[in-house]
């Protein structure tokens, strides 16, 4: 296990789930806390100087009681891709210094929802309720889709479930190269294995414990060779002085290894964050230069560099991508129609437009 787990916390009502037994069987060296022991342990973690860091070595197994399928928490102020999140758990064992999850949840530990049957039931019901809609689903919003796959097998199960459903597309999004379980399955056009990528210096210094960039790109190539389509997410792009060359190298590295015809899409998103993230980052890591860049308050209340700067970044990066793949399906994550038009030259005035643009890429 690349991400060591010291403790497993098992909620009382999660103890009987098959996935709980499976995880415990695989993590024999971890200390297991059950039921009431958890509250005490949780209080102790919260007293740590950096609860998030400690929490990355604790896996809580619990039943999820809410909806398993949720819309991406986008904002009406910008154009959202309309992704739907399949909620398999929350928190991530990696520790990217820019990660929004640091301020998103009020519990610092990793959580896996072990009531898989409920998830499957909820997911099927959701798909049945909206049979005419094209569903783009993703498990990698509140957690990494594959970081805990060796323990949970969630991705493989979902691939098996959704691979042949005509109006469904499942995106498995990761910063790891844990694709082995997917290579044991029959590939499907309905499954996109996508990788968060960044400039090499950013990846090395900011994406703590993530799989090295080269290995991620290598994994993308392997997934593609197996028959999957792949995606790449340049997010967050950090526009530091000299960013272009570093990001161009990543673009070039991708196209040197991966067949452009089998790339479903590439997304671009310049760093933006809720203001509290800067404070948390300062507490945890000290001054991180890019959080102190010239940010202004965006329409969604998040800190963003000016639209002019973002447009310039998107334009340059899109040009580089198009130099390798003129028809690449490039999209922007949470940007305004003005930025879309000014950077990519595309009219993208609503969420529906962007959804259609992406659905078309995989139809």
């Amino acid at each position: 296990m690349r991400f060591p787990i010291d403790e497993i916390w098992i909620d009382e009502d999660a103890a009987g789930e098959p996935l709980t037994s499976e995880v415990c069987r695989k993590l024999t060296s971890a200390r297991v806390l059950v039921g009431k022991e958890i509250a005490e342990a949780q209080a102790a973690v919260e007293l740590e100087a950096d609860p998030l860091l400690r929490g990355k070595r604790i896996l809580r197994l619990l039943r999820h009681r809410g909806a398993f399928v949720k819309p991406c928490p986008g904002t009406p102020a910008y154009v959202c891709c309309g992704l739907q999140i399949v909620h398999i758990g929350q928190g991530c064992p990696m520790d990217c210094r820019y990660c929004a999850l640091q301020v998103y949840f009020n519990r610092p530990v990793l959580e896996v929802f072990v009531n898989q049957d409920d998830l499957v039931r909820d997911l099927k019901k959701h798909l049945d309720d909206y049979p005419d809609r094209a569903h783009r689903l993703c498990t990698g919003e509140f957690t990494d889709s594959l970081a805990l796959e060796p323990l949970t097998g969630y991705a493989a199960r979902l691939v098996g479930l959704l691979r042949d459903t005509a109006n469904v597309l499942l995106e498995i999004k990761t910063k790891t190269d844990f694709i082995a379980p997917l290579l044991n399955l029959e590939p499907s056009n309905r499954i996109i294995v996508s990788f968060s990528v960044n400039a090499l210096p950013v990846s090395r210094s900011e994406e703590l414990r993530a799989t090295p960039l080269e290995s991620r790109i290598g994994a993308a190539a392997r997934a593609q060779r197996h028959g999957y389509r792949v995606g790449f997410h340049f997010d967050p792009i950090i526009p530091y002085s000299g960013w272009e060359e570093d990001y161009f190298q990543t673009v070039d590295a991708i196209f040197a290894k991966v067949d452009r015809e089998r790339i479903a899409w590439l997304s671009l998103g310049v760093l933006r964050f809720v203001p509290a993230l800067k404070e948390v980052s300062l507490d945890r890591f000290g001054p991180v230069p890019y959080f102190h860049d010239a940010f202004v308050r965006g329409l969604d209340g998040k800190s963003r560099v000016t639209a002019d700067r973002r447009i310039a970044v998107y334009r340059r990066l899109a040009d580089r991508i198009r130099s390798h793949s003129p028809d690449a399906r490039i999209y922007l994550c949470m940007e305004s129609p003005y930025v879309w038009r000014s950077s990519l030259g595309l009219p993208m005035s609503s969420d529906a437009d962007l959804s259609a643009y992406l659905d078309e890429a995989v139809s």
Partner: protein
Amino acid sequence: MNWLEHTVTVTISLERVRVNDLTYEIPFFGESKPLETSIKCAGILNTPVVQEQSDGGMIPVLGRRRLKVAQDLGWAEIQVRALPSSMPEQDGYELAFWDNCMRISDTATTAVVVNRLLELFSKETVCSRFLPVLSVPPRGPRIERLCRVGRLERPILSAVATGRLLEKTAVILSHLNSADREILMSLVQDLRLNANTSDEVVAGLFDWAVVQQKSIGEILALSSFGRILEDADHPVPEKAARFRTLLRSSRFPELDRREQEVRQWVRECDLPRDVRIRHDHGFETEECTIEVRASDRVRARKIIDALKNADI
């Protein structure tokens, strides 16, 4: 154990009392004058509590300010309740805490106390026993932030206690070295900035220094800032406004450029006297807001009708 039951009331020479010893300090950032007046009028109403030291000296446990005022007033002797030197530091600080907890209300005092408590007790004890009394959440990042603030220099703490600096500004200062903190404190003082503008300037300079990988001193040594700060011909509020404008345009050059473009464009539009145009905040979109001021509803109606009929 209640150590107050183990005191001995004695009259001692004030010279024996080390009033600047901070072992049991609960700081006070207010004025001592009212206490001095009170002591002059009525004497010391509550006997201070001190702890004997192995060398014969005494350090204050309760009533540090009373002891200090008495010294300043030139008293030779004072009646005290003396605690044995065997009293552990933890117990003495706890006495001081409970004696003062009702007045630990400002951020600076809270920060110093929380920091000291965490030096003496386990975090678990501090969170369960003391923080609820101080209305500090017993978990989350504020505890660490208060500790950082609590370790800052007294002039900064005093500014926080008296509302001249915000807590968040103090947190930023805690991430700088003492030389840069001193420079920034002098700056906000020289420019007579209030708490909000101090925060804007301190946060802005901190951000810029981090990005430029320079010290605050190096940033302020840039000639553009130096010219403003050394300017003796203009009033301070004007200098402060120019400084803030320069800092903003230095940090946000694109925004500054766009704002200048818009101002130039508005000038070229030659707007009627009652019309103003504002661009979208932050230039996130190309939207503009046109504001037309009408003297009365009749005229407002005419303007609306004209707009409706205009071929826009």
